[in-house]
């Protein structure tokens, strides 16, 4: 079979399967199976299991359920609400203050979990009802949470950076560091947009709604303490010569659980089992998609589709920035249809040689790729954050969520542009802390 034909066939098969609404993981797997079966026949039964199993049986990937567990511990306990209210007491006088609290809470929470849907769910379940209650329009309330939630994979720890690190054999500790300043930058940019938007449209609800005295504001601070403790503790384990990133995740998860259980006296079985239950569900969802994406990537590579596309991109005799733009558009399209982990598993090994060949820093590119994937989280047809918002706020029409998130997508594009102009935003911290690597 011709490479182009087989490539198109497998992609079409995938789309048809996805259209039925079946789980993405199984659609990826079935499309891959059909392609492999047509190529190699019954023989492939011998390697399907190997490919899925060794696709995820990796010490670094163990950190994914651990970083998800960290988030679940905070999200499924009163800790999330505390974080949110403490921030609100300080920001409520600013125009659109509640939006800022939401985005800020998302950013802080991102430091404790590797997953974007988890961030979205944790902050959204308090944030969205509260904003709607104070009279914010649907689009503002849901859009800011959908976008703020995407910070979960940019601000370390991050599931996508772990997957990228494994796929490209780059250092995960270094990748995490590269995400810090871009994460802060994007948070500030989101907030700036929120202020502009709220000023422009005159949403001044917050100030009229509630007033807090300085005493009340200070009283809220100790409640943020556990979070700072968790983040500081995890960072210390990670960069203090205690453990590798994969191991630090386990320590972070245990630390978070202990802090949350002790601080909020969650000594009942039900409360703790809820934390583990939701962590298990999300981890399984992510890892099944990854395992199946490995199978799909294997099929694409086996049919020589990956190599053909990579060669086509590499052979485009263009300026490296045009190349970067092409790659970003390509990723954007992939990100619209597939979750970030699947996109990275399938494209990172293929793009990595092209990127480094063109003289781009692989750590910088990881951050650009991650922001690009963040866009995918809030674009239809498959946007994990959109699904979460849909579940939290069933009364808000999807159209409103999309309209609300659109400006943030543009902000993300702007962030990618800024990173292209000033790559140091990503590379400075890791170079400073871990030394320059070629």
């Amino acid at each position, binding site marked *: 079979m011709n490479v182009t034909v087989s490539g198109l066939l497998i992609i079409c098969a995938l789309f048809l399967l996805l259209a039925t609404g079946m789980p993405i993981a199984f659609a990826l797997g079935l499309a891959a199976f059909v392609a492999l079966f047509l190529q*190699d026949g019954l*023989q*492939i039964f*011998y*390697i399907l299991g*190997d*490919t899925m199993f*060794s*696709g995820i049986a990796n*010490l*670094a990937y163990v950190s994914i359920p651990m970083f998800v567990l960290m988030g679940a511990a905070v999200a499924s306990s009163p800790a999330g609400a505390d974080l949110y209210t403490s921030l609100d007491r300080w920001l409520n006088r600013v125009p659109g203050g509640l939006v800022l609290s939401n985005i800020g809470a998302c950013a802080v929470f991102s430091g404790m979990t590797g997953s974007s849907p988890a961030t979205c769910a944790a902050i959204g379940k308090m944030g969205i009802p509260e904003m709607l209650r104070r009279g914010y329009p649907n689009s503002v309330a849901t859009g800011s949470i959908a976008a703020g939630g995407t910070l979960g994979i940019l601000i370390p720890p991050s599931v996508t950076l772990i997957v990228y*690190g*494994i796929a490209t*054999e*780059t*250092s*995960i*500790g*270094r990748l995490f560091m590269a995400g810090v300043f871009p994460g802060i930058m994007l948070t500030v940019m989101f907030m700036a947009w929120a202020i502009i938007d709220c000023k422009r449209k005159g949403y001044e609800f917050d100030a009229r709604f509630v007033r807090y005295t300085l005493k009340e504001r200070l009283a809220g601070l100790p409640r943020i303490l556990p979070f700072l403790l968790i983040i500081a503790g995890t960072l210390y384990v990670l*960069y*203090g*010569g*205690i*453990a*590798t*990133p*994969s191991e630090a995740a386990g320590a972070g998860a245990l630390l978070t659980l202990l802090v949350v259980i002790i601080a909020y006296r969650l000594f009942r079985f039900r409360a703790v089992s809820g934390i583990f239950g939701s962590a298990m569900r999300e981890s399984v969802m992510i890892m099944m998609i990854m395992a199946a994406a490995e199978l799909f990537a*294997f099929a694409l*590579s*086996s049919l*020589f589709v*990956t*190599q053909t596309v990579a060669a086509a991109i590499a052979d485009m005799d263009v300026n490296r920035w045009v190349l970067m733009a092409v790659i970003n558009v390509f990723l954007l399209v992939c990100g619209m249809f597939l979750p970030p982990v699947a996109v990275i598993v399938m494209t990172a*090994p*293929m793009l990595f*040689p092209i990127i480094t060949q063109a003289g781009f820093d692989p750590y910088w590119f990881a951050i650009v790729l991650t922001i690009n994937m963040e866009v995918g989280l809030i674009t239809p047809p498959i946007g994990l954050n959109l699904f979460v918002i849909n579940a939290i706020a069933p009364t808000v029409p999807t159209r409103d969520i999309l309209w609300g998130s659109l400006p943030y997508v543009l902000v993300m594009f702007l962030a990618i542009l800024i990173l292209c102009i000033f790559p140091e935003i990503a590379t400075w911290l890791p170079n400073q802390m*871990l*030394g320059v*690597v*070629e």
Partner: protein
Amino acid sequence: QTVLKASHQFPGGKGDIRDEMVQMIARDVAAADVDLEIQIFPGSSLYKPNDQWNAVTRGLLDMTSFPLDYASGRHPEFSATLMPGLVGNFDRAKRLNDSEFMTDIKKVIEDAGAMVIADAWLSGAFASKQGCITSPDTLKGQVIRAAGPAFEEMLVAAGASISSMPSSEIYTGMQTGVLDAANTSSASFVSYRLFEHAKCLTAPGENALWFMYEPVLVSKKVFERLTPEQQKAILAAGEKAEAFFDEEVRKGDQLMVDTYKKAGVEVVEMSKEDYDAWLELAKQSSYKNFAEKVEGGDALIEKALAVQ
């Protein structure tokens, strides 16, 4: 035209000798004009490193440059190909290839469904942030990332702690202090720039502890389906690649030594006494475990040690 798939885990087109070996074979086979094309899938872009064995012995994968020890879970004899102190230096590695020891190993490979078309013994080194790793007691109390289970057994016996991590994390590990020392191939020592954090490098030299067998394998099922001309072309290309490897791998060691010296890292080699001390330790740990685990394991080790 027959198209064969060749897979390996090493970076493609970046000068890694194992990749160059496979590329050479592909070029030579194409030049032989026997209607045979070899598609190379470098950098684990098709199979994961460990999955290559199953695929090549089943005939799903046609060719691979494969660290044989990865399959030691299925054929425990293969542990002997990543066994401390069994090789020593490149000249001895060459003699080992024609020994009874390797005949036994290759028999296991063939029975499983693959065949060796090019031998390759890769050398490796030690580096530490603390001081020079020479005799076993210089490693006591250090956290080290070792390459290979048999090595881990010996290093533990020497009083070291083992940390397992992918080689891409070694740099950060040494930088942050998670690791005191590392043991890996010479090529990795250069490409991962460990000289920025190492205080002392123990280069392979005349008494090298670490050698790993990474032959180019061809699936027997696939090979038997080829025409005699095609078979001949593959074998000839393999032989040429083997000679190329033998020459280049020595240059690689020199490059590592030069790079580390230039970076101001102390470079030492193990003396015969150091080497013998390690060998004694290995006999009590890795060799002993191997003999217990593998039927005829002690005989296999003896055959290897008997080579001059």
